Structures are given as structure tokens and as C-alpha cells.
């Protein structure tokens, strides 16, 4: 998957870019209190 994504896909985004998008989306959901408290 790693290389598949990094080599290009439907949206032609790299693995890194997808990781950044997902992480920022998660941060946005935390900021909007959709995820109130993530336990560890």
C-alpha cells in the first residue's frame, strides 16, 4: 500500500500527503470536539 499510494493513485497524491490529510482531519475533529477525549 505504501508504495502504491506513494507512486500515485486516483488523486495522484503521495503516501505522505494522505498521511498529512488524515492527521489534519483528525486534528480538526478533535478541535471541533467530535472526539472529546481520546484515551490511551
Amino acid at each position, binding site marked *: 500500500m505504501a*508504495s502504491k499510494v506513494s507512486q500515485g493513485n486516483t488523486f495522484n497524491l503521495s503516501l505522505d500527503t494522505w498521511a498529512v490529510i488524515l492527521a489534519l482531519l483528525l486534528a480538526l475533529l478533535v478541535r471541533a470536539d467530535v472526539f472529546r477525549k481520546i484515551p490511551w
Partner: protein
Amino acid sequence: MATAIAVSRVESEKTPLNVLTLIPGILLLAVVGYAGKLLEKFLNTYAKVHHWTFPNIEYVLWAILIGLLISNLLTVPKIFQPGIATYEFWLKVGIVLLGSRFVLADMLKLGGISLALVIVEILLSLLLMHALGRAFHLTPKLTSLLAVGSSICGVSAIIAAQGAIDADEEDSTFAISAILALGALALFTFPLIGHSLHLGDTTFGLWAGLGVDNTAEATATGALYSDAAGKVAVLAKTARNAMIGFVVLGYAIYWAKRGQAGAVGNKAAFLWKKFPKFVLGFLAISLLVSFHTFTKDQVTSLGNLSRWAFLLTFAGVGLRTNIRQLSRQGLRPFVVGALGEVLIAALTFGLVLGANRIWGL
């Protein structure tokens, strides 16, 4: 291991990405990682109840060990493989979210020190690996790949360089196997050395970030030592990863001038293409936290999300390491890699101790 990885990488590029095929492997990563976390908790509680003196072994080690046992004692069905390969993706998600645990002042201080050490480390590592490659009569392109892999960031750097310098698939496989095998060894030896020398968290974290090649192993090595060391290891490794474009560009130009690789067109576009974008995400989250975009509880939640992403990564590190396949790789590149790694580990250790003296880490 690396052969399998290299082959699966090439094969995977030809087939379209189907998200559904990733689910079984991701679930396996979650089960193995969570089992490691439960085992840590269980052993600590058991030792406390029975008044045992038992060292606190982090979930990181248990997740890697369970993964190693599964991948080496059992045959992991093919259905799990695509999902297991996503451990690299979770690593990058975890690194971006870890940016929440660095405020701008930390980032500028530690990041600046890391960057200065990284530049020295890269220059010395490149010189060292080329000298060793020549001494052991490795092909020049294999030497270039080993040098890129050991000076910057392991597998990603080798794959980036392979295309840029038109290296053989076989050379790339050798270089990847050597770097991964040595990364697996570093995972266990670095923390032992660190504990025996009573290194501080920041010193150890910097050493792991500078001395261990592959990002997943560098992160795991730091986290095995302590949570704080893991944080610093990721920062140092991220600074190292940020240099990937410059070094690969240098090699691409060198081989193109010798007529053994395609010419590099637009250098800025080349640098941007090779630049690891997760570094920008890491900086962005750190900036947002520094400007109080998140409440204290939200910052804790982001840090915990990062830990969950790393949990999947560490399970993947164990699950994709196959000791039998490793031992089948050629000996000479491994010896060159091993010699280089030991020397680089010693060199980076000296650098970190020097930095500790100058900046009082």
C-alpha cells in the same frame, strides 16, 4: 524480508489500490499492537501485586516481539499483507500528530540542534560508506544506495534514489535488506547501550534519531527507551528525512553527468517531489498548538492519537521482519552496511555527546 518487501512494492505499483484489501492487515496490526499494550499492563500489575521486581517493559517491545513471533513462526496469509504494509502510513500519521507535543520554542531549539547534527552526520556517513564500498569492491551504484540509506532515512531514501540514479532492482533489494536488518539490530542494542551508560532521554533520543536509519525503527528505538526519548528521536529523524531531496538530487546529478542516469530537469520540482510532506504536517500541527488553537485536553487527545498510530506501526515492524529471509541476503553488502552502521552509531554518539556538552541537552 527486504526481498519480499522490494518485490511486493514493485508488484503493488501495478495494481490499483483497493481500500477493502487493507482491512484484514490493519485489523491484525491493531490486534498485535493492542495485545502488546495489554501485556505491558498485565505484567506491571502482576509484578506489583506479587511484589516482584520486574523492569517496566514498554508496549513497544511487546508489540514488536508478538509481531516477530507471528511472522517467523507462522505463515501470515496473503490476505493480511496489504494491510500490514500500511504500517508506514500510520507512522507518518503518528509523526504529524506528534507535532502537537512540541511547542515552537522546543522545536526551534531541539530542531536547530538536530539539523546541525544531521548535516554533519550526513556528510560523514556518505564519506564513510563510499570508502567502505570501495574497500569491499561493491558496485558504485550499490554503494550510492547504501550511502543514501545509511545517511538519511533508510528504505524511503533508497527507493527515492533508485529511480533517480537508475540503479538495478537487485542493488536496491540488497541495500534495503542491509538497512532493515541493521535497523532491527539497532532496535535492541541502542536501548541496552543507552541504559548501561545512563544516557538522558534527550541525549538518547537524539542518538536514536541520528543513528538508526529507518524511520519506523528509529521511532521504536526511541520509544523503547522512554516516551520523552521517543519524542526527541522522531524530531531528529524528521530533520534527517527533510534532507532526503538534497542528497538524492546530488546523486542524480552525479550519475547523470557520468551518463549513467537520466538528466535532472527542474531542480526545484525535483526537490519538492522528493521532500517528505509529513514534515510540513508535523510543523503545521506544532505551530497550531503553539498558537493555542487547541485546549490542553485536546492537545492530550492529539498526543494519544499519535500513540495509537505508532502502536500500529510497531506491530507492523515486527510483522514484516522475517529473519529467515534476512539471512538469505548477500553477505558482502550486509557486512559493509554493518561496519558502516557501527561506525555511524559511534560517530553519532560522539556528535550527541559533543552537543550535550555545548548546549546542555
